[in-house]
């Protein structure tokens, strides 16, 4: 007999999951903008990561309202936990753009 995990996986249609991966570009762009703003404002240390956290929450809210129309479980495999995830390597994207803008604006 199939396990509960296999049964749950059989109810999902994989080509549509692949199609919905357009959301990764939304999260990537949002973390780029957050990094730019953190660098421009000269944030350092924990305040910068606080901005990243706020930006992640705001991005999740935007995706929930605009793209998922209020029902994240219908479009994202993890439900609302998949929604809150900032995305693969987007924390390092944030730090990269943060250091870039901080260096250009404040140091050079």
């Amino acid at each position, binding site marked *: 007999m199939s396990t509960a995990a296999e049964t749950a996986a059989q*109810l999902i*249609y994989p080509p549509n999951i692949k*199609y919905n991966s*357009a959301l990764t570009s939304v999260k990537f762009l*949002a973390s780029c903008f957050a990094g*730019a703003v953190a660098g421009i404002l000269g944030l350092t240390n924990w305040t910068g990561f606080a901005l990243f956290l706020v930006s992640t929450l705001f991005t999740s809210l*935007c995706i929930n309202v605009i793209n998922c129309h209020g029902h994240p479980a*219908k*479009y994202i495999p993890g439900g609302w936990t998949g929604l809150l995830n900032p995305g693969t390597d987007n924390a390092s994207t944030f730090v990269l753009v943060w250091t870039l803008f901080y260096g250009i*604006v404040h140091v050079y």
Partner: protein
Amino acid sequence: MLGTVLLTFAAITVLHAAFSTYEHLSHLKAMGRPEGSLPIDIIVEALFALICGTLGASLNAPPLKEISWAAEMRKRNIDEMDSRLGFASFVNRGRNLFSGPSSQTKLK
């Protein structure tokens, strides 16, 4: 289209805020004053660019598709997905094709 417009506008606003900050800091360095906090309008401009950028990225994404099999089956016929060829019945067709010439042959 609105998403692209918002993204472009946010990118320009970020660059403008970055240049304004650079100019402000250069001004402070030239005057010899110690570096204080940024003017409030630059902070507001940077945060506004972050909000616009996130909204633009979210609007730019294509409409998502639902990921469950039930949702996909609403758009398709069961015969497209599971035709069950082993159970297809050709009896009626054979009766009409090979019954020889007769005055009232109806094709079903």
